[in-house]
Protein backbone atom coordinates (compact mmCIF):
# COMPACT_ATOMS: atom_id res chain seq x y z
CA UNK A 1 0.00 0.00 0.00
CA UNK A 2 1.06 3.59 -0.63
CA UNK A 3 1.66 6.16 2.12
CA UNK A 4 -1.15 8.66 2.63
CA UNK A 5 -0.67 12.31 3.61
CA UNK A 6 -2.97 15.07 4.85
CA UNK A 7 -2.37 17.97 2.48
CA UNK A 8 -5.17 20.28 3.59
CA UNK A 9 -7.64 20.78 6.43
CA UNK A 10 -10.73 22.88 7.08
CA UNK A 11 -13.39 23.32 9.74
CA UNK A 12 -16.51 25.38 10.47
CA UNK A 13 -17.33 26.98 13.76
CA UNK A 14 -19.29 24.53 15.89
CA UNK A 15 -22.55 25.59 17.50
CA UNK A 16 -25.70 26.65 15.72
CA UNK A 17 -25.20 27.17 11.99
CA UNK A 18 -27.92 28.82 9.93
CA UNK A 19 -26.93 27.44 6.55
CA UNK A 20 -27.89 24.15 4.84
CA UNK A 21 -26.31 20.77 5.59
CA UNK A 22 -24.64 20.49 2.17
CA UNK A 23 -22.97 23.85 2.72
CA UNK A 24 -21.82 22.84 6.21
CA UNK A 25 -20.04 19.95 4.45
CA UNK A 26 -18.77 22.10 1.58
CA UNK A 27 -17.40 25.04 3.58
CA UNK A 28 -14.58 23.10 5.31
CA UNK A 29 -13.86 21.36 1.99
CA UNK A 30 -13.28 24.78 0.40
CA UNK A 31 -10.94 25.64 3.28
CA UNK A 32 -9.03 22.37 2.85
CA UNK A 33 -8.56 22.81 -0.91
CA UNK A 34 -7.36 26.38 -0.36
CA UNK A 35 -5.05 25.23 2.46
CA UNK A 36 -3.40 22.64 0.20
CA UNK A 37 -3.61 24.66 -3.03
CA UNK A 38 -5.20 21.63 -4.68
CA UNK A 39 -8.50 21.34 -6.54
CA UNK A 40 -7.98 18.26 -8.74
CA UNK A 41 -10.19 16.12 -6.51
CA UNK A 42 -10.97 12.65 -7.85
CA UNK A 43 -13.13 11.35 -5.04
CA UNK A 44 -15.24 12.81 -2.23
CA UNK A 45 -16.40 11.06 0.94
CA UNK A 46 -19.02 12.80 3.04
CA UNK A 47 -19.43 11.66 6.64
CA UNK A 48 -22.92 12.22 8.00
CA UNK A 49 -25.17 10.39 10.41
CA UNK A 50 -28.49 12.19 10.48
CA UNK A 51 -29.10 13.86 7.11
CA UNK A 52 -32.10 11.69 6.32
CA UNK A 53 -33.59 11.95 9.76
CA UNK A 54 -32.68 15.45 10.99
CA UNK A 55 -32.24 17.48 7.81
CA UNK A 56 -34.67 15.64 5.55
CA UNK A 57 -31.91 15.11 3.02
CA UNK A 58 -30.55 11.85 1.65
CA UNK A 59 -27.76 11.21 -0.86
CA UNK A 60 -25.81 14.05 0.73
CA UNK A 61 -22.55 13.37 -1.15
CA UNK A 62 -24.27 14.05 -4.49
CA UNK A 63 -25.36 17.45 -3.21
CA UNK A 64 -21.95 18.30 -1.77
CA UNK A 65 -19.92 17.30 -4.84
CA UNK A 66 -22.09 19.58 -6.97
CA UNK A 67 -22.09 22.41 -4.43
CA UNK A 68 -18.29 22.29 -4.68
CA UNK A 69 -18.42 22.15 -8.52
CA UNK A 70 -16.33 18.98 -8.37
CA UNK A 71 -18.53 16.89 -10.68
CA UNK A 72 -17.84 14.37 -12.24
CA UNK A 73 -15.66 13.24 -9.28
CA UNK A 74 -16.81 10.14 -7.40
CA UNK A 75 -18.83 10.83 -4.24
CA UNK A 76 -20.23 8.71 -1.44
CA UNK A 77 -21.91 9.39 1.88
CA UNK A 78 -20.50 7.39 4.80
CA UNK A 79 -22.77 6.65 7.75
CA UNK A 80 -21.29 4.84 10.73
CA UNK A 81 -23.06 6.50 13.64
CA UNK A 82 -20.89 8.88 15.67
CA UNK A 83 -17.83 7.17 14.11
CA UNK A 84 -18.87 8.25 10.60
CA UNK A 85 -16.06 10.81 10.45
CA UNK A 86 -13.19 8.42 11.09
CA UNK A 87 -14.89 5.80 8.91
CA UNK A 88 -14.93 8.26 6.01
CA UNK A 89 -11.23 8.97 6.62
CA UNK A 90 -10.62 5.22 6.52
CA UNK A 91 -12.33 5.04 3.13
CA UNK A 92 -10.23 7.96 1.92
CA UNK A 93 -7.13 6.23 3.21
CA UNK A 94 -8.00 3.06 1.31
CA UNK A 95 -8.71 4.98 -1.89
CA UNK A 96 -5.28 6.66 -1.85
CA UNK A 97 -3.26 3.78 -0.37
CA UNK A 98 -4.64 1.38 -2.95
CA UNK A 99 -3.43 3.58 -5.79
CA UNK A 100 -6.96 4.11 -7.10
CA UNK A 101 -6.91 7.86 -6.41
CA UNK A 102 -4.26 10.51 -5.67
CA UNK A 103 -6.45 13.30 -4.26
CA UNK A 104 -9.45 12.53 -2.04
CA UNK A 105 -11.58 14.98 -0.06
CA UNK A 106 -13.04 13.64 3.17
CA UNK A 107 -15.56 16.04 4.66
CA UNK A 108 -18.11 15.61 7.41
CA UNK A 109 -21.17 17.57 8.45
CA UNK A 110 -24.09 17.45 10.83
CA UNK A 111 -26.98 19.80 11.46
CA UNK A 112 -28.52 18.77 14.77
CA UNK A 113 -29.83 22.02 16.21
CA UNK A 114 -32.78 22.17 13.83
CA UNK A 115 -34.60 19.58 15.93
CA UNK A 116 -35.43 20.01 19.61
CA UNK A 117 -33.51 18.41 22.44
CA UNK A 118 -35.93 15.49 22.84
CA UNK A 119 -35.79 14.62 19.15
CA UNK A 120 -31.99 14.90 19.11
CA UNK A 121 -31.78 12.55 22.13
CA UNK A 122 -34.14 10.08 20.46
CA UNK A 123 -32.23 10.26 17.18
CA UNK A 124 -28.98 9.32 18.93
CA UNK A 125 -30.79 6.63 20.96
CA UNK A 126 -31.70 4.85 17.70
CA UNK A 127 -28.08 3.62 17.80
CA UNK A 128 -29.01 1.31 20.66
CA UNK A 129 -30.30 -2.25 20.30
CA UNK A 130 -33.92 -1.91 19.13
CA UNK A 131 -35.39 -4.64 21.35
CA UNK A 132 -32.87 -5.12 24.15
CA UNK A 133 -32.24 -1.42 24.85
CA UNK A 134 -34.16 1.19 22.86
CA UNK A 135 -37.69 0.16 23.91
CA UNK A 136 -36.83 0.77 27.56
CA UNK A 137 -35.95 4.42 27.00
CA UNK A 138 -32.21 3.72 27.04
CA UNK A 139 -30.38 6.79 25.71
CA UNK A 140 -26.66 7.34 25.20
CA UNK A 141 -26.49 9.37 28.45
CA UNK A 142 -28.21 6.40 30.16
CA UNK A 143 -25.60 3.99 28.81
CA UNK A 144 -22.80 6.30 29.92
CA UNK A 145 -24.42 6.71 33.35
CA UNK A 146 -24.73 2.96 33.96
CA UNK A 147 -21.11 2.56 32.81
CA UNK A 148 -20.04 5.38 35.15
CA UNK A 149 -21.70 3.73 38.15
CA UNK A 150 -19.80 0.50 37.49
CA UNK A 151 -16.57 2.47 37.06
CA UNK A 152 -17.10 4.37 40.31
CA UNK A 153 -17.75 1.12 42.15
CA UNK A 154 -14.77 -0.73 40.69
CA UNK A 155 -12.10 1.96 40.45
CA UNK A 156 -13.07 4.75 42.85
CA UNK A 157 -13.87 7.36 40.22
CA UNK A 158 -16.02 10.13 41.79
CA UNK A 159 -18.24 12.93 40.57
CA UNK A 160 -15.30 15.24 41.32
CA UNK A 161 -13.16 13.42 38.74
CA UNK A 162 -15.93 13.80 36.17
CA UNK A 163 -16.20 17.51 36.97
CA UNK A 164 -12.42 17.85 36.58
CA UNK A 165 -12.69 16.52 33.01
CA UNK A 166 -15.57 18.91 32.31
CA UNK A 167 -13.65 21.92 33.63
CA UNK A 168 -10.43 20.94 31.83
CA UNK A 169 -12.07 20.46 28.44
CA UNK A 170 -14.61 23.24 28.53
CA UNK A 171 -11.96 25.76 29.61
CA UNK A 172 -9.55 24.41 27.00
CA UNK A 173 -12.23 25.22 24.39
CA UNK A 174 -11.69 28.91 25.17
CA UNK A 175 -8.38 28.61 23.28
CA UNK A 176 -10.20 27.24 20.21
CA UNK A 177 -12.00 29.82 18.11
CA UNK A 178 -14.08 27.10 16.41
CA UNK A 179 -15.37 25.59 19.68
CA UNK A 180 -19.08 25.55 20.51
CA UNK A 181 -18.82 26.38 24.23
CA UNK A 182 -17.10 29.67 24.98
CA UNK A 183 -17.97 29.87 28.66
CA UNK A 184 -15.45 29.19 31.45
CA UNK A 185 -16.62 26.95 34.29
CA UNK A 186 -15.25 26.09 37.72
CA UNK A 187 -15.45 23.10 40.06
CA UNK A 188 -17.15 25.40 42.55
CA UNK A 189 -19.84 26.42 40.08
CA UNK A 190 -20.69 22.94 38.85
CA UNK A 191 -20.04 20.82 41.95
CA UNK A 192 -19.29 22.55 45.26
CA UNK A 193 -21.42 25.68 45.53
CA UNK A 194 -24.98 25.73 46.95
CA UNK A 195 -26.18 26.53 43.41
CA UNK A 196 -24.39 23.56 41.82
CA UNK A 197 -27.52 21.41 41.59
CA UNK A 198 -29.28 24.25 39.77
CA UNK A 199 -26.32 25.04 37.55
CA UNK A 200 -25.57 21.41 36.88
CA UNK A 201 -28.61 19.13 37.29
CA UNK A 202 -28.60 15.39 36.72
CA UNK A 203 -29.21 14.21 33.15
CA UNK A 204 -28.79 10.49 33.84
CA UNK A 205 -27.54 9.89 37.39
CA UNK A 206 -24.65 10.06 38.25
CA UNK A 207 -23.97 12.12 35.11
CA UNK A 208 -24.91 15.77 35.15
CA UNK A 209 -25.47 18.43 32.54
CA UNK A 210 -21.80 19.45 32.39
CA UNK A 211 -20.70 15.82 31.99
CA UNK A 212 -22.39 15.71 28.58
CA UNK A 213 -21.20 17.23 25.31
CA UNK A 214 -23.41 19.85 23.68
CA UNK A 215 -25.57 19.14 20.61
CA UNK A 216 -23.81 20.94 17.78
CA UNK A 217 -23.95 21.81 14.12
CA UNK A 218 -20.61 21.71 12.39
CA UNK A 219 -18.38 20.41 9.66
CA UNK A 220 -14.73 19.44 9.19
CA UNK A 221 -12.57 18.23 6.32
CA UNK A 222 -9.23 16.60 5.56
CA UNK A 223 -7.74 16.39 2.08
CA UNK A 224 -5.85 13.11 1.64
CA UNK A 225 -3.19 12.70 -1.03
CA UNK A 226 -0.49 10.36 -2.24
CA UNK A 227 3.20 10.93 -1.46
CA UNK A 228 3.82 12.27 -4.95
CA UNK A 229 1.11 14.89 -4.62
CA UNK A 230 2.14 15.72 -1.03
CA UNK A 231 5.64 16.58 -2.30
CA UNK A 232 4.11 19.40 -4.35
CA UNK A 233 2.23 20.92 -1.40
CA UNK A 234 4.00 23.64 0.58
CA UNK A 235 2.62 22.77 4.03
CA UNK A 236 4.17 20.82 6.95
CA UNK A 237 4.03 17.11 6.04
CA UNK A 238 1.61 15.09 8.17
CA UNK A 239 1.10 11.43 7.37
CA UNK A 240 -1.98 9.37 8.19
CA UNK A 241 0.15 6.51 9.43
CA UNK A 242 -2.28 4.20 11.18
CA UNK A 243 -5.95 3.26 10.83
CA UNK A 244 -7.41 0.81 13.35
CA UNK A 245 -11.00 -0.26 13.80
CA UNK A 246 -12.78 -2.74 16.03
CA UNK A 247 -16.39 -3.63 16.83
CA UNK A 248 -18.14 -5.06 19.88
CA UNK A 249 -21.59 -6.40 20.82
CA UNK A 250 -24.56 -4.20 19.95
CA UNK A 251 -26.24 -4.78 23.34
CA UNK A 252 -23.75 -3.27 25.80
CA UNK A 253 -24.73 -5.39 28.79
CA UNK A 254 -23.95 -8.60 26.88
CA UNK A 255 -20.20 -7.90 27.14
CA UNK A 256 -18.25 -10.16 29.49
CA UNK A 257 -17.00 -7.20 31.52
CA UNK A 258 -19.19 -4.12 31.01
CA UNK A 259 -16.46 -1.84 32.43
CA UNK A 260 -14.15 -2.62 29.52
CA UNK A 261 -14.23 -0.88 26.16
CA UNK A 262 -12.58 -3.68 24.24
CA UNK A 263 -13.14 -2.14 20.81
CA UNK A 264 -11.23 0.98 21.89
CA UNK A 265 -8.30 -1.10 23.06
CA UNK A 266 -8.18 -3.16 19.86
CA UNK A 267 -8.64 -0.19 17.51
CA UNK A 268 -5.83 1.74 19.24
CA UNK A 269 -3.52 -1.27 19.21
CA UNK A 270 -4.09 -1.82 15.48
CA UNK A 271 -3.71 1.85 14.61
CA UNK A 272 -0.50 2.36 16.59
CA UNK A 273 1.03 -0.91 15.36
CA UNK A 274 0.30 0.03 11.76
CA UNK A 275 2.09 3.34 12.36
CA UNK A 276 5.02 1.57 14.03
CA UNK A 277 4.34 3.39 17.30
CA UNK A 278 3.06 2.57 20.75
CA UNK A 279 0.98 4.52 23.23
CA UNK A 280 4.07 5.90 25.01
CA UNK A 281 5.17 7.70 21.83
CA UNK A 282 1.91 9.65 21.42
CA UNK A 283 2.37 13.39 22.10
CA UNK A 284 -1.23 14.58 21.79
CA UNK A 285 -4.60 12.82 21.64
CA UNK A 286 -8.19 13.64 20.84
CA UNK A 287 -10.47 11.16 22.61
CA UNK A 288 -14.24 10.83 22.23
CA UNK A 289 -15.43 12.57 25.41
CA UNK A 290 -19.14 12.68 24.56
CA UNK A 291 -19.43 12.08 28.32
CA UNK A 292 -16.68 12.95 30.81
CA UNK A 293 -16.32 9.32 31.95
CA UNK A 294 -15.38 8.32 28.39
CA UNK A 295 -12.22 10.43 28.40
CA UNK A 296 -11.08 8.67 31.57
CA UNK A 297 -11.95 5.16 30.33
CA UNK A 298 -10.55 5.68 26.83
CA UNK A 299 -7.29 7.14 28.19
CA UNK A 300 -6.79 3.74 29.80
CA UNK A 301 -7.99 1.58 26.91
CA UNK A 302 -5.79 3.28 24.28
CA UNK A 303 -2.81 2.50 26.54
CA UNK A 304 -1.86 5.86 28.06
CA UNK A 305 -2.57 4.68 31.62
CA UNK A 306 -3.18 1.36 33.37
CA UNK A 307 -6.82 0.23 33.59
CA UNK A 308 -8.48 1.97 36.52
CA UNK A 309 -5.80 4.67 36.81
CA UNK A 310 -6.99 7.25 34.27
CA UNK A 311 -8.65 9.33 36.98
CA UNK A 312 -5.41 9.33 39.00
CA UNK A 313 -3.50 10.74 36.01
CA UNK A 314 -6.24 13.34 35.64
CA UNK A 315 -5.84 14.34 39.31
CA UNK A 316 -2.10 14.91 38.74
CA UNK A 317 -2.76 17.13 35.74
CA UNK A 318 -1.10 14.73 33.32
CA UNK A 319 -3.93 15.01 30.79
CA UNK A 320 -3.94 18.81 30.63
CA UNK A 321 -2.00 21.09 28.29
CA UNK A 322 1.57 20.97 29.63
CA UNK A 323 1.01 17.54 31.20
CA UNK A 324 2.76 14.34 30.17
CA UNK A 325 -0.19 13.20 27.97
CA UNK A 326 -2.35 16.13 26.84
CA UNK A 327 -5.87 14.97 25.92
CA UNK A 328 -8.53 17.03 24.14
CA UNK A 329 -6.63 20.32 24.09
CA UNK A 330 -9.13 21.39 21.39
CA UNK A 331 -11.85 21.26 24.05
CA UNK A 332 -12.86 17.77 22.96
CA UNK A 333 -16.46 16.88 22.17
CA UNK A 334 -17.30 18.34 25.58
CA UNK A 335 -16.04 21.84 24.83
CA UNK A 336 -15.62 22.00 21.08
CA UNK A 337 -18.94 20.28 20.36
CA UNK A 338 -20.18 17.06 18.78
CA UNK A 339 -21.78 17.33 15.35
CA UNK A 340 -21.92 13.55 15.23
CA UNK A 341 -21.03 12.79 11.59
CA UNK A 342 -18.25 15.38 11.53
CA UNK A 343 -16.64 14.61 14.90
CA UNK A 344 -14.08 12.04 13.74
CA UNK A 345 -12.85 14.46 11.08
CA UNK A 346 -12.79 17.37 13.53
CA UNK A 347 -10.55 15.25 15.78
CA UNK A 348 -8.21 14.65 12.83
CA UNK A 349 -8.31 18.38 12.05
CA UNK A 350 -7.05 19.16 15.55
CA UNK A 351 -4.27 16.56 15.46
CA UNK A 352 -3.04 17.81 12.06
CA UNK A 353 -3.11 21.39 13.38
CA UNK A 354 -1.07 20.26 16.38
CA UNK A 355 1.45 18.32 14.28
CA UNK A 356 1.84 21.33 11.98
CA UNK A 357 2.63 23.33 15.15
CA UNK A 358 -0.09 25.83 14.24
CA UNK A 359 -2.36 25.46 17.28
CA UNK A 360 -1.44 28.79 18.90
CA UNK A 361 -2.33 29.03 22.59
CA UNK A 362 -3.27 25.37 22.80
CA UNK A 363 -0.17 24.01 21.04
CA UNK A 364 1.42 20.91 22.53
CA UNK A 365 5.16 21.63 22.32
CA UNK A 366 7.09 19.67 19.71
CA UNK A 367 4.21 17.29 18.97
CA UNK A 368 5.12 14.79 16.25
CA UNK A 369 2.72 11.90 16.89
CA UNK A 370 -1.02 12.22 17.50
CA UNK A 371 -3.88 9.78 18.08
CA UNK A 372 -7.65 10.10 17.68
CA UNK A 373 -10.37 7.85 19.05
CA UNK A 374 -13.79 8.10 17.39
CA UNK A 375 -16.32 6.07 19.38
CA UNK A 376 -19.46 4.81 17.64
CA UNK A 377 -22.55 3.59 19.46
CA UNK A 378 -21.60 2.84 23.05
CA UNK A 379 -18.24 1.41 22.05
CA UNK A 380 -19.60 -1.01 19.48
CA UNK A 381 -17.79 0.53 16.50
CA UNK A 382 -14.57 2.37 17.21
CA UNK A 383 -11.84 3.82 14.99
CA UNK A 384 -8.45 5.12 16.09
CA UNK A 385 -6.23 7.10 13.71
CA UNK A 386 -2.51 7.76 14.16
CA UNK A 387 -0.90 10.78 12.54
CA UNK A 388 2.83 11.55 12.36
CA UNK A 389 4.74 14.65 11.38
CA UNK A 390 7.41 13.92 8.78
CA UNK A 391 10.45 16.17 8.68
Amino acid sequence: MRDVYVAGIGITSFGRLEYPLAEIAAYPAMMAMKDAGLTAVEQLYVANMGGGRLSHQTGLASAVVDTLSLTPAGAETIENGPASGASAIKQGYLAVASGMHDVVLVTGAERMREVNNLDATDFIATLTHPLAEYIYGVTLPAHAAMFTRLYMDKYGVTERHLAMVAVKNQNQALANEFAHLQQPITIEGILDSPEAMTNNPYVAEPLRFFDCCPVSDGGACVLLVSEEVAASVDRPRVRLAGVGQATDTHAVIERDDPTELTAVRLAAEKSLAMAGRDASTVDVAELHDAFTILEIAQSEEVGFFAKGEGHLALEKGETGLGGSMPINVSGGLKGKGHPVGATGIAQAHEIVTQLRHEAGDRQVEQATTGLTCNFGGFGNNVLCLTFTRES
Partner: protein
Amino acid sequence: MQRQIYAYRCRECGTLHYPFRMRCKECGNLEVFEFDAEPLPNKGTLVTFTHVHNLPAEYEVARLSIGAVELDGGVRVMGQLDIDEPKMGMPVRGSVEVVRREAYERYWGFVFRAA
Protein backbone atom coordinates in the same frame (compact mmCIF):
# COMPACT_ATOMS: atom_id res chain seq x y z
CA MET B 1 -52.04 -13.73 28.64
CA GLN B 2 -48.72 -14.16 30.44
CA ARG B 3 -46.10 -12.41 28.34
CA GLN B 4 -42.48 -13.47 28.49
CA ILE B 5 -39.11 -12.38 27.12
CA TYR B 6 -37.25 -15.12 25.29
CA ALA B 7 -33.61 -16.03 24.90
CA TYR B 8 -32.38 -18.26 22.07
CA ARG B 9 -30.47 -21.50 22.56
CA CYS B 10 -28.26 -22.75 19.72
CA ARG B 11 -29.37 -26.25 18.64
CA GLU B 12 -25.81 -27.07 17.62
CA CYS B 13 -23.83 -26.21 20.75
CA GLY B 14 -26.40 -25.16 23.36
CA THR B 15 -25.17 -21.58 23.88
CA LEU B 16 -27.90 -19.26 25.11
CA HIS B 17 -28.18 -15.88 23.37
CA TYR B 18 -29.94 -12.70 24.37
CA PRO B 19 -30.72 -10.68 22.38
CA PHE B 20 -31.33 -12.73 19.24
CA ARG B 21 -28.57 -13.01 16.66
CA MET B 22 -28.61 -14.87 13.35
CA ARG B 23 -25.43 -16.81 13.96
CA CYS B 24 -24.22 -18.48 17.14
CA LYS B 25 -21.31 -16.54 18.67
CA GLU B 26 -19.78 -19.75 20.03
CA CYS B 27 -19.98 -22.37 17.29
CA GLY B 28 -20.67 -20.14 14.28
CA ASN B 29 -23.19 -22.58 12.78
CA LEU B 30 -24.37 -21.35 9.36
CA GLU B 31 -27.79 -23.06 9.38
CA VAL B 32 -30.33 -20.25 9.79
CA PHE B 33 -32.84 -20.07 12.66
CA GLU B 34 -31.36 -23.12 14.38
CA PHE B 35 -32.27 -21.75 17.80
CA ASP B 36 -34.89 -22.79 20.33
CA ALA B 37 -36.65 -19.93 22.10
CA GLU B 38 -36.79 -20.32 25.85
CA PRO B 39 -38.35 -17.96 28.38
CA LEU B 40 -35.87 -16.01 30.48
CA PRO B 41 -36.12 -16.43 34.25
CA ASN B 42 -37.59 -13.45 36.08
CA LYS B 43 -35.28 -13.34 39.10
CA GLY B 44 -31.83 -11.83 39.23
CA THR B 45 -29.57 -9.16 40.70
CA LEU B 46 -29.18 -5.52 39.75
CA VAL B 47 -25.82 -4.89 38.03
CA THR B 48 -26.04 -1.14 37.47
CA PHE B 49 -28.73 1.52 37.05
CA THR B 50 -29.49 5.15 36.33
CA HIS B 51 -32.33 7.62 36.71
CA VAL B 52 -32.80 9.30 33.34
CA HIS B 53 -34.12 12.88 33.38
CA ASN B 54 -33.75 13.73 29.69
CA LEU B 55 -35.98 11.24 27.89
CA PRO B 56 -37.09 10.85 24.29
CA ALA B 57 -40.41 12.56 23.55
CA GLU B 58 -42.65 9.47 23.91
CA TYR B 59 -42.07 9.29 27.66
CA GLU B 60 -44.38 11.65 29.48
CA VAL B 61 -42.66 11.26 32.83
CA ALA B 62 -40.10 13.48 34.53
CA ARG B 63 -37.73 10.67 35.40
CA LEU B 64 -37.31 7.06 34.35
CA SER B 65 -35.21 4.48 36.15
CA ILE B 66 -33.35 1.99 33.98
CA GLY B 67 -31.12 -0.85 35.08
CA ALA B 68 -29.11 -3.82 33.92
CA VAL B 69 -29.96 -7.12 35.61
CA GLU B 70 -28.08 -10.40 35.66
CA LEU B 71 -30.81 -13.05 35.64
CA ASP B 72 -30.46 -16.43 37.31
CA GLY B 73 -28.49 -18.52 34.85
CA GLY B 74 -26.27 -15.60 33.85
CA VAL B 75 -28.05 -13.83 30.97
CA ARG B 76 -27.94 -10.03 31.40
CA VAL B 77 -30.83 -7.82 30.29
CA MET B 78 -31.91 -4.21 30.49
CA GLY B 79 -35.19 -3.21 32.04
CA GLN B 80 -37.09 -0.38 33.61
CA LEU B 81 -36.97 -0.20 37.40
CA ASP B 82 -39.90 0.39 39.73
CA ILE B 83 -37.67 0.72 42.80
CA ASP B 84 -37.44 3.83 44.98
CA GLU B 85 -33.80 3.47 45.95
CA PRO B 86 -32.04 0.93 43.77
CA LYS B 87 -28.72 -0.50 44.96
CA MET B 88 -26.14 -2.40 42.94
CA GLY B 89 -26.29 -6.10 43.75
CA MET B 90 -29.82 -6.06 45.17
CA PRO B 91 -32.10 -8.99 44.30
CA VAL B 92 -34.88 -8.07 41.87
CA ARG B 93 -37.87 -9.77 40.26
CA GLY B 94 -39.04 -8.90 36.75
CA SER B 95 -42.43 -8.86 35.09
CA VAL B 96 -43.25 -8.14 31.46
CA GLU B 97 -45.20 -4.92 31.03
CA VAL B 98 -45.68 -2.07 28.57
CA VAL B 99 -42.41 -0.12 28.61
CA ARG B 100 -42.94 2.23 25.67
CA ARG B 101 -45.99 3.68 23.94
CA GLU B 102 -46.04 5.28 20.55
CA ALA B 103 -49.07 6.50 18.63
CA TYR B 104 -50.25 3.08 17.38
CA GLU B 105 -47.81 0.76 19.09
CA ARG B 106 -47.09 -0.56 22.53
CA TYR B 107 -43.85 -2.34 23.39
CA TRP B 108 -43.53 -4.92 26.15
CA GLY B 109 -40.39 -5.49 28.15
CA PHE B 110 -38.97 -6.14 31.63
CA VAL B 111 -39.94 -4.02 34.61
CA PHE B 112 -37.98 -4.96 37.73
CA ARG B 113 -39.01 -4.53 41.35
CA ALA B 114 -37.22 -5.36 44.60
CA ALA B 115 -37.48 -9.11 45.27
